[in-house]
């Protein structure tokens, strides 16, 4: 996902040491916090909602802020478009500092640069869908004909064609949030803030909306800052995730970083329940391939390799090192016994090859259907690694928490070593074997 960022390195939104405190004397609270006092110590003066939040959101990125209720995430997002003024610190949107500007300038920035989607949709109930979608454009001062035409395009885009003239109350929750999303998209700002946008929807609709959001983001290249309390949602949507606790950001990282390398016990405990199969990718769990031969090596070499590594299968590569398939010990044994020399007839091309960014959840089905290990290959079909069934189960079940490599568990040999050695000895001597190796 991070590869799709149009201008890598350019920053869309930047928060710099943001503080927000509520109470009679918010500045005093912030002063004490800066002096090193804890949140609990200042609680007599008021509530410190956000404490020293700093982050940068890259253009075209989906940046997720995740935390439980009361962690300050909603306060944080409202400071990013100036709905709430930061007690201390600065916010930069598209290079413009929005802290400390006049109300008029702030309205101007909101119109042009940053729009928002709300948890409970916040549609205007007395206006039709199309007028709601066109609301941002209306405020921008666009003429009626023009803005309705544009709103209609957006309505089709978010999948609400035919509902333009209905009132929001005539729509289901999921559809209402499509209107909310459409309203934000129609305003055509670079940055989209989404405050628990899918939390009020039921799970099936939520998943559908998440997928749609990712498609839209890929198509339109918007920068999205998404607030959620649902870790699975954060992991699914986020290019990067900021985990918040008690007003502070405790970790910022990619979903995999958060999952495999949690910054502290809180994050670790939090990610315990995450659906690992959806976050971890093939690349993060695959193991190095050891049992591998080239296609032209011949059955005897294959059998030797398998005997030495005590496995029942070996991976076969083409001449250009691309993945050709898998051979199994029993088939090779038969071939050696019959005196044949061409491996090609027994290469099983039903072996599954997946790309490194495939989520583990998509590996479960192939693993069930075939006992063969799954090959991980790159776009040029070069073999990068292998995922045996056991490795997949261990990764999903989070069996090992240490950082050491898992023992390689390939399908164990099904034929005894002595039997293989016997056959190899019966049919050829080592000289012949060497010659065969040289031909390859």
């Amino acid at each position, binding site marked *: 996902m991070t590869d799709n960022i149009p201008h890598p390195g350019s920053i869309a939104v930047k928060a710099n040491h943001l503080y927000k405190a509520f109470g009679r004397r918010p500045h005093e609270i912030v002063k004490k916090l800066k002096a090193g006092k804890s949140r609990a110590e200042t609680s007599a003066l008021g509530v410190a909602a956000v404490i020293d939040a700093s982050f940068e959101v890259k253009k075209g990125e989906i940046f997720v802020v995740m935390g439980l209720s009361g962690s300050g995430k909603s306060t944080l997002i409202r400071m990013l478009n100036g709905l709430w003024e930061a007690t201390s610190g600065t916010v930069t949107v598209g290079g413009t500092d929005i802290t400390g500007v006049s109300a008029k300038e702030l309205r101007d920035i909101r119109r042009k640069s940053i729009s928002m989607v709300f948890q409970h949709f916040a549609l205007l109930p007395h206006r039709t869908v199309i007028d709601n979608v066109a609301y941002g454009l209306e405020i*921008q001062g666009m003429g009626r004909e023009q803005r309705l035409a544009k709103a209609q395009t957006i309505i089709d885009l978010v*999948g609400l064609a035919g509902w333009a*003239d209905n009132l929001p109350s005539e729509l289901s929750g999921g559809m209402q949030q499509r209107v909310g999303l459409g309203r934000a998209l129609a305003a055509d700002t670079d940055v989209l803030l989404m405050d628990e946008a899918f939390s009020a929807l039921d799970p099936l609709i939520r998943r559908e909306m998440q997928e749609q959001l990712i498609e839209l983001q890929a198509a339109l290249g918007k920068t999205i800052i998404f607030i959620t309390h649902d870790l699975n949602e954060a992991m699914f949507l986020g290019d990067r995730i900021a985990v918040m606790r008690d007003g502070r950001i405790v970790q910022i990282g990619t979903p995999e970083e958060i999952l495999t390398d949690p910054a502290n016990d809180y994050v670790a405990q939090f990610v315990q329940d995450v659906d690992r199969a959806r976050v971890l990718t093939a690349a993060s769990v695959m193991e190095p391939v050891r049992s591998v031969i080239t296609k032209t090596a011949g059955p005897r070499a294959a059998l030797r390799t398998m005997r030495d590594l005590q496995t029942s299968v070996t991976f076969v590569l083409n001449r250009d090192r691309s993945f050709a398939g898998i051979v199994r010990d029993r088939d090779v044994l038969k071939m050696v016994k019959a005196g044949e020399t061409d491996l090609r007839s027994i290469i099983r091309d039903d072996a599954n090859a997946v790309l490194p960014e495939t989520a583990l959840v998509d590996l479960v089905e192939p693993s069930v259907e075939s006992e063969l290990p799954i090959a991980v290959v790159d776009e040029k079909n070069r073999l990068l690694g292998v995922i045996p069934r056991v490795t997949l189960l261990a990764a999903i079940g989070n069996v090992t928490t240490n950082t050491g490599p898992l023992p390689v568990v390939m399908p164990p040999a099904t034929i005894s070593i002595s039997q293989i050695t016997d056959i190899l000895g019966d049919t050829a001597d080592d000289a012949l074997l060497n010659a065969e190796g040289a031909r390859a």
Partner: protein
Amino acid sequence: MTDFRLPLGSLIESFVDYITDTFGFLFGFIRALFDGAYESVEFLLGAPPFWAIMLVLGVLAFGIRGWKFAVGTVVGLLVILGVDQWENAMDTLALVLVASVLAIVISVPVGILAAKSTLASNIIRPVLDFMQTMPAFVYLIPALILFRVGVVPGIVATIIFAMAPGVRLTELGIRSVDQEVVEAGQAFGASPWRILRQIQLPLATPTIMAGVNQVIMLSLSMVVISGMVGAGGLGAQVVASLNRIDIALGFEAGLAVVILAIFLDRITASLGSTDSTGFFGGLRHTLRARRATDAMASTAEPARAPQPVGEPARA
């Protein structure tokens, strides 16, 4: 007991004397203004023959609530005519309309102010408490001095007595508009005035209309009392029947007030709701549905937007 007495009453009295002397011209102006307004409305209601007024009110009732209410209205008005209170009823109706309109014109902006500013709200609230609970007769005394006998002190006392719920319900309505929707307006860069006009007022309308309804009902109860200062109409009849202990006249005039009250209450209550009851509501509903189908037909033709990426969820 001590001899000390708080001279509050005499203070107010000298204050009223003072403003009567100093601002006499101002009160003369207000008097002329209110009098003019009342006279015109009274002329509108009193000059045409009774059947014309009955027809207009009947059509209004049909348009807003439906035929049952229209029939009820006409029957009620016939009863008023039958007990020979038609002219008095029209005088009272004119008084209520003028006083209510003025009370609403004053109370809604004050309510908006109270909703926007907590300071204003804190100042306005005790004033409203005072206005609402001070016995209504008491207003009549200074009003009588300032505006002299006639219809105007009645109107002024009615406005003061009746405007409180208008202010309170306007404030309540605006304050209870979903904060997220207001935030949505702000988040898209709308100005406070635009948010008030396009979000807060429309969403607060049902509550504000409940306030308007209350203003009208209180006006009606107050105009009877203003009969005591010579405001005429049904109020004068009730006062006269009280003086003469005339049960028959008292009942007839009272019944006429009740009929007017029910008519005004049902009409204003319907204006507050957004459902499509009555002929006007149905008409509005039909028009909107027709516009929807027209729009659908016209948007089916032009160049299609980028491929929709999801089917609408089934409700």
